[in-house]
């Protein structure tokens, strides 16, 4: 396959960026999207041009490190992570535009790499159960109905990639937030801190500069782990309850 890519190049956080075109003449449909970029980078390095910086680590769709805007869609045309996208999803001769996640709180560090430290700070604000090592009761002392355990799992599957924020026209991180609030809120272990958790996490979310939810649903459409949109309803419900209680 012959492919043209237009890639966002930016040398540093404060530097201006621009789209630069590159030509690839020998792309195999079996290559992953990131392997296509690896090949391009090898070509660039060999010819003396600095390679394109992009994040990736596990390359099996679970670590959440990779994430690119591909032709305007977070993670590209399939509902998967960028590393699990393959070139057979594109056609011979196609031009592909590749950009970093665009959101105020995700500062571009270089080329396609952004800073997602805001997500860690949101978790630090309350996305945990306060239980010190060694103080846990026997695991079977609390039963968890399967429906709750399953729902907790479905929402705990979030990989923190940031596609939801990138896809949202308002750069909200409500799907990310809602997923964690729902995961811990479904379990008995998460109950004691349930009210304070949602308030603290939401305050941090707003403090980081993420926008508010306007029920567009682009986040859930873009989520490679299929976190359902209704976690945001759960978030709102938990928030109302907490506020009534005076949190």
């Amino acid at each position: 396959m012959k492919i043209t890519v237009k890639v966002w190049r930016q040398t540093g956080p404060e530097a201006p960026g621009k789209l630069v075109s590159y030509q690839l003449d020998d792309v195999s449909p079996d290559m992953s999207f990131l392997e296509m970029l690896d090949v391009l980078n090898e070509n660039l390095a060999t010819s003396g041009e600095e390679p394109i910086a992009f994040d990736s680590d596990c390359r099996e769709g679970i670590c959440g490190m990779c994430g690119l805007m591909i032709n305007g869609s977070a993670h590209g045309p399939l509902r998967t992570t960028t590393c699990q996208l393959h070139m057979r999803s594109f056609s011979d001769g196609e031009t592909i535009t590749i950009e970093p996640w665009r959101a105020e709180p995700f500062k571009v560090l270089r080329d396609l790499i952004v800073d997602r430290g805001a997500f860690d700070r949101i978790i630090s604000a309350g996305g945990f159960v306060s239980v010190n090592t060694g103080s846990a009761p026997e695991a079977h002392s609390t039963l968890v109905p399967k429906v709750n355990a399953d729902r907790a799992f479905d929402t705990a599957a979030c990989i923190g990639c940031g596609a939801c924020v990138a896809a949202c026209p308002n750069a909200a991180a409500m799907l990310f937030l809602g997923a964690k609030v729902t995961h811990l809120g479904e379990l008995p272990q998460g109950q004691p801190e349930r009210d304070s958790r949602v308030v603290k996490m939401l305050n941090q979310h707003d403090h980081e500069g993420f926008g508010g939810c306007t029920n567009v649903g682009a986040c859930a459409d873009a989520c490679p782990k299929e976190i359902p949109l209704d976690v945001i309803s759960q978030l709102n419900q938990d928030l109302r309850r907490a506020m009534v209680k005076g949190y």
Partner: protein
Amino acid sequence: MTDDLIDGLYREGAPIRDTKAPSGPIEQRWSKRQFEAKLVNPANRRKLSVIVVGTGLAGGAAAATLGEQGYQVSAFCYQDSPRRAHSIAAQGGMNAAKNYKGDGDSVYRLFYDTVKGGDYRARESNVYRLAEVSSNIIDQCVAQGVPFAREYGGLLDNRSFGGVQVSRTFYARGQTGQQLLIGAYQALQRQVAEGTVTMYSRHEMLELIVVDGRARGIIVRDMVSGEVETHLADAVVLATGGYGNVFFLSTNAMGCNVTATWRAHRKGAYFGNPCFTQIHPTCIPVAGEHQSKLTLMSESLRNDGRIWVPKKAEDRNKDPRQIPEEDRDYYLERIYPAFGNLVPRDIASRAAKYQCDAGKGVGPGGLGVYLDFSEVIGRVGRDTVSARYGNLFDMYKQITGEDPYEVPMRIYPAVHYTMGGLWVDYDLQSSIPGLFVAGEANFSDHGANRLGASALMQGLSDGYFVLPNTIRDYLASGPYPAVDESAPEVVEAKKSVTSRIEQFLNSKGTRTVDSYHRELGHIMWEYCGMSRNREGLLTAVDRIRTLRKEYWSNVKVLGENEQINQSLERAGRVADFLELGELMCIDALHRRESCGGHFREESQTEDGEAERRDEEFAYAAAWEWGGEDSSPVLHKEDLVYEFIELKQRSYK
């Protein structure tokens, strides 16, 4: 130490002993050690500092726990967030001796299975402790909100895994590693908020600081600004994972590397059993030269899939559906009728290699065998198969573009886990006082081969329960003299890091870092992979030395230090892999027996099975760095089996 060079490659030094291991009844040893280990007064803990490198299951759990106890912790990871460490990719599950199924499991049975699975090359005391602590891990993780699979009654579900006869594996669908890691990550972030842990993401450790024979800090590079920073502490913990990426292609993440442990090795930490590598039989084969990593398909596929190759080499490019039954060789079922397709990982891997070596491999490059589901689909129906393996089939289809419901899957072995790592004593302390090593980065618990669902168990056992209880003994034995950034050892360590960076950036070579890494990987896979022999290993050492020499004069790294520079990051990692690779080959050469994942062709039975040689090799090999232009020194730690009788494995 004898001065004689053995095979022209290494020397043998004095034997080494684990001086911390308690004696007495095995079930009392861990309690005894915890009691004997000195305590640190809670008020004094905040004056003591610990550096933790790596934030996977072992590092994340250790940093969180030490923070909870009140120590000042600095944690480092090369990823953009501690939640991304490669523990996250573990699929299958985690063993624990809860015996919730009432099927005869016990701490002793898990201990026994792990020692046997490691082919009798791990310490009894360590493995027993691992089995003992396993139950606490489940309690801890459940309390954190880890969403393990449950039954309708609300109890935790278990499954049987990796060929054992009891159901002791706890799981969260196919994403157990992810869920356990997020549990540890959340505990860690809680401590970040408490102020006990300072987190440094996108920071890579490039050197260990040793002052007066003790580990006192690290030199790191801020991967965003390029700044080379010094961090000092009372003790250092390395939890930096395995080194499977020395093979270039493996199931490891792109960034997994040996640099932290290798730099420590060069500063005096012994490297234990570097040649013990686990090669997993069910991975998706290489599609072409562009391949950047290999993807594991869960081993559970072998429960229902039948592995075969064409009997005739000329059929290997045919559509497999057109090859009649009588022209197929179900070689595992033929050679191992009792276990069939469920033989252990190393046997299944080697058998696939032999078929491909014989020219019967299928797919691109002839490096693959079929894993065929047509028989089970015919027997139980497509829907049942889909319920069991649907997500794996989807993943396979996404990567290869082929539909395994219609066409047999192709699989091939890939490097998955390294049992070797820095040598540690029972306290997880390396041969450098004050340097502790946890998780896959150490060599301690899996011997020559790791059982399925035991990696997660070891990482969390080390991180939550073992290390926090043993490091206090070291910290309580202080205070150690204050060190500041002007100490000559600190200045020297920092200077060596900056001059290495300059050397890469000033080398006006012609070849990229990746091209060297790929070539090293080919050498390792060919000669130090599934099957090893003396001649091949000698060739490999020779070729690695030549390659390493060329690397330093001809590698090309563009850009500057003061920026995100991924070529520069890789250049340092590959330089260390080029040294580690040689040591792995020397270790494989010196161990003239087959055991676990290490198969020496010279040591096999008449019918071609692995032959362990306990009279000569029942020891752990701890290698000491010999110096830049000198040879490594072997120290043997004899393994004593007081409780478990050594037996040869047989699967025929």
